[in-house]
């Protein structure tokens, strides 16, 4: 046991050294990017990482923030609680970061937010839509946690309003992935909003993300004969569902949320559908055009909503740091509360629950492309 004690003393001193070396650094500002880069649930980690890295690169090219070079630390958080917690603990305790961009999935962002909030680290989630990310179970806003995307209730409400008032539909069918909190949140809020407005939910069907065969749900939709089907999932599911619906000769329009926004959306199949989004990809807003061009130039692929939101989240955070004038998370949080930022996805301000306030765009899918339909203001 003697050797063991010596070893532990040794490691203690080594760790102490490392701790001293890890802090400070003067000209560097570390930002952690937590994204699901591997794991059993593959999602959109790479897009998120690339969007955030692009923003950091642009800031560094401009001379950094407050004169400090921004050093990104990318961690794989797998969209699963345990690795996300480990990643958060690692970047906070080991690397000493004060700012986290991520996670993508709410189920990973929620446990991370608890750690970050306790450690007074600013977390800016680009895409976690679950209200619980920024608010704890008692309804108290977490001081250091922000997000750059809509929350579920908002998009559901906008979708329902648009379907009921603008399109004049009265019968809606809702498709839900019970395991996906994003889809579930949107769907439930759509249902409440639509029935509150006076519409009728003629049917509801659930599926799982691993399903590829939707024919039985489509058969149910055929039976229920709705005016519109609300399918607030990502484009991959949308592609599958709409293609199969088309094969079966169904003409009912589909409607969804920002998950539809992708260069890979099957326009042919989804034509006639609508979705709510942060911005219009063919928008001529200079920011969006620039972002798209820069992203394509750097990575050779078209950015999707996740990349845009990660880019926005990073920019927001860095702008707030600059506005705060110091690498102090309390000051940055204050700055974020007061910020009004021109982002790719619109002008962003934060409400008291740290959710962004921005206008929602309704887009229509046609075979030629996605077209701007209308703007719904919050």
């Amino acid at each position, binding site marked *: 046991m003697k050797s063991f004690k010596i070893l532990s003393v040794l490691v203690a001193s080594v760790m102490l050294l490392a701790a001293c070396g890890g802090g400070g650094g003067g000209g560097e500002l570390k930002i952690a990017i937590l994204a699901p880069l591997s794991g059993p649930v593959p999602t959109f980690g790479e897009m998120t990482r690339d969007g955030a890295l692009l923003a950091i690169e642009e800031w560094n090219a401009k001379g950094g923030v407050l004169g400090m070079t921004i050093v990104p630390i990318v961690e794989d958080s797998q969209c699963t609680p345990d690795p996300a917690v480990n990643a958060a603990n690692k970047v906070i305790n080991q690397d000493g970061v004060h700012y986290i961009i991520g996670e993508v999935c709410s189920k990973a962002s929620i446990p991370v937010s608890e750690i970050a909030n306790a450690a007074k680290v600013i977390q800016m989630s680009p895409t976690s839509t679950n209200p619980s990310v920024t608010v704890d179970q008692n309804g108290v806003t977490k001081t250091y946690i922000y997000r750059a995307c809509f929350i579920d209730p908002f998009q559901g409400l906008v979708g329902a309003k648009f379907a009921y008032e603008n399109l004049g539909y009265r019968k809606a069918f809702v498709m839900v992935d019970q395991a996906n909190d994003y889809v579930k949140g949107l769907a439930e809020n759509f249902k409440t909003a639509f029935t509150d407005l006076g519409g009728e939910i003629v049917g509801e069907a659930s599926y799982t993300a691993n399903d590829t065969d939707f024919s039985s*749900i489509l058969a149910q939709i055929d039976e229920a004969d709705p005016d519109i089907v609300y399918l607030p999932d990502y484009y991959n599911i949308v592609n599958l569902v709409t293609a199969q619906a088309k094969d*079966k000769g169904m003409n009912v329009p589909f409607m969804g949320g920002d998950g539809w926004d992708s260069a890979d959306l099957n326009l042919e199949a989804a034509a006639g559908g609508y979705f709510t989004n942060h911005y219009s990809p063919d928008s001529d807003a200079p920011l969006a055009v620039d972002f798209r061009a820069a992203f394509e130039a750097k990575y050779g692929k078209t950015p999707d909503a996740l990349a845009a939101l990660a880019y926005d989240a990073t920019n927001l955070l860095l702008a707030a740091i600059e506005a705060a004038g110091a690498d102090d998370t309390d000051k940055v949080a204050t700055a974020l509360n007061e910020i009004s930022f021109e982002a790719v996805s619109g002008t962003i301000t934060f409400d008291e629950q740290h959710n962004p306030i921005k206008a929602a765009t309704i887009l229509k899918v046609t075979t030629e492309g996605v077209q701007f339909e209308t703007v719904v203001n919050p």
Partner: protein
Amino acid sequence: MQLQIRPKKPPIIVRPNSFLAWIGRAFMILLALVVSYILIRNLIEKPLFFVTNVINGLQLGFVYALIALGYTMVYGIVKLINFAHGDVFMVGAFVSFFAIERFDLHQWPLKIFPTMNSFIAIGIGTITTILLSMLVCVLMAVTIERVAYKPLRDAPRIAALITAIGVSFFLEYFGLLDFVFSARFIPYERPFDVVTWYISDGIHRMQSGETPPDNAIVVSNILIIIILSTLAVLLFLQFLVHRTKIGVAMRAASFDKPTARLMGIQVDQVISFTFAIGAAFAGLGGVLYAIAYPSIKTLMGVYPGLKAFVAAVLGGIGSIPGAFVGALIMGQAESMTASYISTPMRDAIAFTILILVLLVRPTGIFGEPEKEKA
């Protein structure tokens, strides 16, 4: 010390037809009755909807069958749950995707012979694409077998199983890398157009944008292609296994490897051959699956692979007709569960069915009773 033996009451022997023995059977019968009641009620209420569901289940079941055949053959001969099989299936889909997207392989006959009948040309092009996918899958499976499984043939079975899981994880996570297949969901371009017919009073070909009448059953050419190719594969396999020397050797080797070697059968080659055949069908299945459900991703093989394995177990693993029947049952079970009970529960119910069937027939529907351990 003296041992004290307390006189034990003589045990009561439960006779097969006594009340206590019937409790379990009554339980199973009750379950069966509930299921049949739900099905029959729905059949009577909405016969058309029911038939539609049966057709949907068929399509799914036939694709599962293609994968399940590979599982069951490999398991039959090496007693290994080849977890990487689902990923071979995925690679099959991706190979055809690249062939179509990058090289327009499905249109080569038209490029060389522009005057060719387009129907035949597309047919030949599609078959070429499928053959290419099958070939790549075969090469991959044989490599995997040689590198990862063969060295472990004499090791404990679990080592091979863990290796299979390792290979599966490797294929998945390597595929997820950006420069391989990436984590994206990729829209799949079908090599041919979907043609749908609806049957109400006679068979009508559906024009694009046309909505079938309310009381029609919709059938697509994809369904027909899947059914035909699966049946062809099944017949081919039956022929192979019962009429050819290598097929009989496969069965011999799966029964008793040392004795098979005494007959001069090169067991390692037979095993590689089995892997190759299974992989070829998985490749075919991958392409057909991608055509039927045109969105592919790197992890697409996990769940179909699992379901197909369950189907193989349900039918009695090691048995070729068993895998086929099991897959059809799985397809129907999923389709019916999704329509009449609850879609999110469909995996759960598929597995519950499996467990219940195993309780009644512990080695699956077509399975032979397990050999005692030697």
